[in-house]
């Protein structure tokens, strides 16, 4: 039962990956743009899922970290003429460090202070993007952001660039998979579920929470360094508070604390506006109502519903097995 389940899951995984590679081959430019955006937003949401879903901390600055990554990429590759990989390194280090510095005082006081501190930071980052013209070109934005060459392949055209985003998503997913299966992942779960007990088992909850937040922020930066060459033009507007809230929605709708939650949440957030385009101005209202209904029905998001269904089936199967064993015992001579 569990063995077939495992093979089924592997088969499903391979099918999805194959579909993500093959199906977009005959997509038009716009379709590829949307799909690349999905890959980029999934990376940012995965970072937030680590902070929120695994370590249980609310961050309202994930959009700002995406912005920092995007500006690092834009400034370094246009004005600096440096390769994107250098910008990636700078974005990771910068976002990790800022995450750590923001989290440190917040966690020394009280847990939910992180939400307030990150809210303030989100506003501050937006003001820097908009007002520090010498660095960010302010409201005029930065244009002509080049797309990278990856191992000798140019990614100027939409399809190669989509593969570049997809490959980055695959790498980040593998790293995340490793992280949550490591003792760190276990410690993250412990500090979300029961911080008092975790402390009494020697788990330095403060340090692990900071790590989760800093790594989650760094992934926001990674998403940003992909976002800049994707749009090839950035200005401050996309990185305001609403991006942070969008990312929060993605994590919650998909299912916070589930590995695949961000994939699903980002898909809904990126694709739904396209599908619901015919509703015109009502799109946001419909989305908001749908999210509210979902969260009333299942606070753990869409994957939470699936999880409950599977758990129920497992209990039923187990009790059926027990009943069989019992009837055997009773009928035995």
């Amino acid at each position: 039962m569990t063995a077939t389940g495992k093979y089924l899951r592997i088969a499903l995984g391979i099918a999805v990956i194959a579909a993500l590679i093959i199906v977009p081959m005959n997509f038009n430019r716009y379709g590829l743009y949307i799909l690349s955006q999905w890959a980029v937003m999934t990376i940012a949401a995965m970072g937030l899922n680590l902070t929120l879903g695994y370590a249980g901390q609310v961050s309202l600055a994930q959009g700002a970290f995406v912005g920092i990554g995007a500006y690092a990429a834009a400034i370094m590759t246009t004005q600096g003429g440096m390769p994107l990989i250098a910008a990636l390194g700078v974005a990771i280090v910068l976002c990790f460090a800022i995450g750590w510095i923001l989290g440190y005082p917040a966690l020394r006081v009280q847990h939910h202070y992180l939400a307030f501190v990150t809210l303030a930071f989100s506003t501050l980052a937006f003001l820097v993007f908009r007002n520090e013209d010498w660095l960010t070109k302010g409201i005029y934005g930065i244009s002509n952001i080049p797309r990278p060459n990856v191992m000798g392949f140019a990614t100027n055209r939409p399809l190669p660039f989509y593969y570049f985003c997809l490959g980055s998503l695959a790498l980040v997913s593998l790293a995340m998979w490793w992280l949550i299966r490591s003792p760190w992942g276990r410690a993250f779960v412990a500090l979300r579920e029961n911080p008092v007990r975790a402390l009494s088992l020697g788990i330095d909850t403060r340090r692990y929470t900071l790590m989760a937040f800093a790594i989650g922020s760094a992934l926001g930066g990674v998403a940003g360094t992909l976002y800049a060459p994707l749009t090839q033009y950035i200005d401050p507007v996309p990185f305001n508070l609403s991006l942070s809230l969008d990312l929060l929605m993605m994590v919650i709708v998909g299912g916070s604390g589930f590995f695949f939650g961000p994939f699903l949440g980002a898909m809904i957030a990126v694709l739904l506006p396209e599908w619901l385009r015919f509703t015109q101005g009502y799109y946001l209202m419909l989305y908001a109502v749908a999210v509210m209904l979902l969260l009333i029905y299942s606070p753990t998001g869409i994957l939470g519903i699936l999880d409950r269904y599977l758990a129920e089936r497992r209990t039923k199967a187990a009790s059926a097995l027990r009943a069989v064993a019992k009837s055997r015992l009773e009928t035995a001579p």
Partner: protein
Amino acid sequence: MTAVLEVTNVKKSFGGIKAVDGVSFDVQEGEILGLIGPNGCGKSTLFNCILGQLTPTDGEVKVDGKIVTGLRPSELNRLGVSRTFQLLQVFPKLSVRENLILAGQEHQGNMMSRLFGPSDAGLSAAADQMIGFFKLDHLATEAAGGLSYGQQKLLDAAMAFMGGPRLVLLDEPAGGVNLTMLGDLKERLAAINREKRATFVVIEHNMEFVMSLCTRVMVMAEGKLLAMGTPAEVRANPAVIEAYLGHCGIDP
């Protein structure tokens, strides 16, 4: 003999309530000290003050002669002091084995080895040994939340031993556990005490359990230390009979 734990004049008040009111005692290496007293007399609060969950209003705690008052619980735990809580505290979604690995993983290596090393932190064998020791073999891969209450209590206690602690404080480990499992638990605790020279302080209401397991018993009443001695001495102490054994609804 050396004192593993020295508690000097520890006090803790909540607003006007003096939950712990100047308690002093020592625990010698290898000892099993019982701590009894009526509900609300400050036993759990005393544990919380010793282990850093609460900061005492006054007083001092030493472990192996070193002052530890003010240390965080995680730091104390890594010095070899471990505990269980009065209310069951296992991680229900993790499996039995995962719970035990979690309980031991911070006691070896460093942050980097815990990130890049093996996912079980090299503790699978130790966890399985502990599972065998507490007779939970058939449950190793079950989610802890699906176990019976008694089994979860055993797991809770087993978790306290994963780091190889020198001193373990157990807060009502047998509360709500059936008689067979109670016998099991007592025998396991006695075995760990014998084999590993681990020192215990045990809060327990079951008198039979306390009197047969402990080398010394300490009695608290209204935040103060009322009596301390061998089980026989304590049982015969008129003040104890008056304050505790006499009229509380606790089986003698």
